[in-house]
């Protein structure tokens, strides 16, 4: 099977989602925790590493620094990656529900 993009890690998926609005690192951390009802808690070191990688890939960009905290936002390339991932997740979800006949 060829895939346009290999599956994203949970961390990267949520970081990209969080950056549909401009946020700084701590903001990402808080939103991800909130969205996942406290299930996903990303370490600051992990977020920092992921931000560096995503900047290099051009999936996010840094906005002009406003004060001390640097803010980031998702790019068009980043959005297409997320959209592709959602289709992949939907396929996983649909197949799971079809075969297990749904959970409860």
């Amino acid at each position, binding site marked *: 099977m060829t895939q346009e993009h290999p599956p994203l890690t949970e961390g990267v998926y949520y970081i990209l989602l969080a950056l549909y609005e401009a946020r700084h*690192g*701590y903001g990402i*951390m808080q939103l991800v925790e909130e969205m996942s009802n406290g299930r996903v*808690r*990303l*370490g600051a070191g992990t977020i920092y*590493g992921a931000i560096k990688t995503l900047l290099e890939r051009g999936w996010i960009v840094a906005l002009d620094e406003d004060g001390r905290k640097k803010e980031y936002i998702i790019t068009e390339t980043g959005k297409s990656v997320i959209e592709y991932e959602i289709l992949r997740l939907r396929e996983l979800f649909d197949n799971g529900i079809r075969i297990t006949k749904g959970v409860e």
Partner: protein
Amino acid sequence: MHKYRLMINPYAIENWVNDMACQGWHLKKFTWIRFTFERGEPGSHIYRYDELERFGTDYEEDYLEFLQSSGIEQVNRSGNFVFFRKAVQEGPFELFTDKKTRIGNLSKKMTILLSLILLNLIIGITGLIGDFSNQTADWIGFTLNSLNLIVVVLFSLPLYKLMRVRNLLKKELDVFSD
């Protein structure tokens, strides 16, 4: 209060620093061997260690500022080693939550330990052979080369422990994505 420990396995040191904090002794300053603790409220903070070299010099300031803006307090720094802490009431505190970075960090640590072990093993063994190859044994050389072999023994257990942690993480990656 001062305590002396060799910083061979930083993960073991981190556990020890957290145990001390639970008993009300909070890390203030440290070097690779000497740790200074001050009395404080037992278990009020979680301590984490990190090594900075992987980010290179230009990222260093940026990284430290990033951690600070995330509400993480820098306790003290000694060379590339840094200890951070966060109040317990602010929730769980880990610097790295993804297995890949943790495996990478462990691998780097293991490479350093393994090179030191091999270097000391070679110097120790070739030295010992040399010390006894003459008519009169070189006892100063013997002492020094024995020290090389002590280093080998001293570093081997931490290396083994790090290897076990890394293998466990790698096994989990076979099934879980992160």
